[in-house]
């Protein structure tokens, strides 16, 4: 009973949190699923977006321009990973690790210190809701509208000539080149887009918690992956619409599981272990299934 009421009280906050992380989850889904390029840059571009937005807001810049510049910074980080990958033939994973490592120093440079508080500054939430940032459920409503707009935009883009071409590059690079597509340019643009979304997520997070910290990216990639996998399990990734919605739905669901785990008495510091185990389980599932299929007697 106690567990249930604890969880019940956590629902609004966990929905809002899930919605905040949904942005970066989309930014993780794009390289992994649409481009077939495993990319870890989100761990660096998410805090980069937070750092840029926080530093600019703390300096009195407006919310829209601050978020716009955060987005741009994230796009540059993503593009850098892509350039390292395509021009120097470094695997995308390693390229991302190099960039996210460099981002740590850059993020501290951007803020001038390891963290920035925004408690006395206006944010998206204080402007749209009220001075204390609004109740979790209204925050969730605002974020849902933003996410819906983002998903629609992505859905539209992926049906344009350029978007279709991007998906072709993600599906088969030999075919794409033979059809006149510069795989180099599309990979750079695709990872830049993913980086922009991760940074947008970071800038929303900084405003949501009125605080940016250089370490806030740690674990964000696995959360994004967990969200994507969860969402695909619920929706299936079989159509483009479902593939786009999967990280969003998955992120909302993921934070429900987090709330349940916390209600059950797990410590917040246990969550990374649990998330890692979940992703491991999801990745191992096809293997486990085929083992069982091959040995039905067991």
């Amino acid at each position, binding site marked *: 009973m106690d567990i249930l009421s604890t969880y019940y009280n956590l629902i609004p906050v966990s929905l809002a949190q899930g919605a905040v992380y949904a942005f970066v989850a989309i930014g993780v889904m794009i390289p992994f699923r649409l481009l077939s390029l495993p990319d870890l840059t989100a761990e660096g571009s998410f805090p980069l977006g937070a750092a840029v937005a926080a530093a600019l807001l703390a300096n009195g810049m407006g919310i829209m321009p601050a978020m716009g510049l955060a987005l741009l910074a994230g796009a540059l980080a993503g593009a850098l990973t892509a350039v390292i990958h395509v021009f120097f033939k470094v695997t995308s994973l390693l390229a991302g690790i190099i960039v996210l490592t460099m981002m740590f120093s850059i993020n501290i440079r951007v803020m001038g210190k390891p963290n920035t508080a925004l408690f006395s500054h206006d944010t998206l939430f204080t402007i749209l809701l009220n001075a204390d940032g609004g109740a979790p459920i209204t925050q969730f409503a605002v974020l849902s509208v933003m996410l819906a707009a983002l998903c629609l935009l992505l859905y539209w883009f992926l049906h344009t*000539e350029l978007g*279709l071409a991007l998906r*072709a590059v993600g599906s*088969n690079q030999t*075919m794409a080149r033979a059809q*006149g597509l510069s795989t180099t340019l599309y990979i750079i643009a695709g990872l830049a887009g993913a980086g922009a979304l991760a940074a947008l997520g970071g800038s929303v997070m900084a405003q949501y918690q009125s605080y940016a910290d250089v370490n806030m990216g740690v674990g964000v990639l696995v959360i994004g992956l967990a969200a994507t996998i969860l969402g695909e399990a619920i929706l299936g990734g079989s159509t483009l619409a479902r593939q786009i919605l999967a990280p969003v739905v998955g992120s909302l669901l993921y934070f429900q599981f987090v709330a349940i785990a916390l209600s059950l008495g797990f410590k917040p510091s246990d969550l990374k272990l649990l998330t890692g185990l979940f992703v491991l389980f999801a990745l191992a599932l096809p293997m486990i299934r085929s083992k069982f299929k091959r040995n039905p007697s067991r």
Partner: protein
Amino acid sequence: MTAAAKQAGVIVSGLQKTFFPGTVQEKRALDGVSFSLAPGEFAIVIGSNGAGKSTMLNAISGEVQVDEGTISIAGKAIEQWPTHKRAGYISRVFQDPMQGTAASLTIEENLAISARRGKRRSFRTGLHAAEREEFRSALEPLGLGLENRLKDRVSLLSGGQRQSLTLIMATLQAPQLLLLDEHTAALDPRAADMVIRSTLSAVEDRQITTLMITHNMEQAIAHGDRLLMMHEGRVVLDLAKDEKAKLTTADLVTRFHDVVSDRMLLS
């Protein structure tokens, strides 16, 4: 053939390619490949394994960077261009049915991408409703029913169906040069036969300049306007249509052995 007509076709001259130069694995795959094709000419390429046929096609398409030599199509020197730029002039069907299509996209999306090969892509919609009719009538002659499955993902298709789709994609807009690398080798005999028939109808009806690699001697004799035989990175035999018409399979094998042993004696 007039000089102007020749200019409009394909001229390949002195292609050289050595893989892993200066190492123990050094392999000279192309050793001065030269030939030219008149517009609309359909050339069959034969030669033993490792003769350099695929490497030559990859060099023309841009997937392999040559060490030396020039390639011109419709009067443009393209040897310095990246693959995707050459795709404005060249289209191709690969030996591996998996390589020619994007599996996670639908049939109509694949066709829409190739319908825009060589054109500038923008934020316009990637697939117009009006194009579907065009795609249907392009797919219908295959007799595979693909025209009724436009919204199916290509990953659902068999190898033969994918290869047929790739062929339609390659010829939807007539290219200046069509490259076919043993494109029926991975198919069962029935599918291979069907793909060959659609190839011939596309190439011959529409007079597309074509290079087709095959190991099938009957095909090599029965079809095409030219026969190029490759050996050790060179074109060692180049027969025009009338000479080719007199050949039998046995002749071809004899000619091949003659050429090979002549070269061995010379070297």
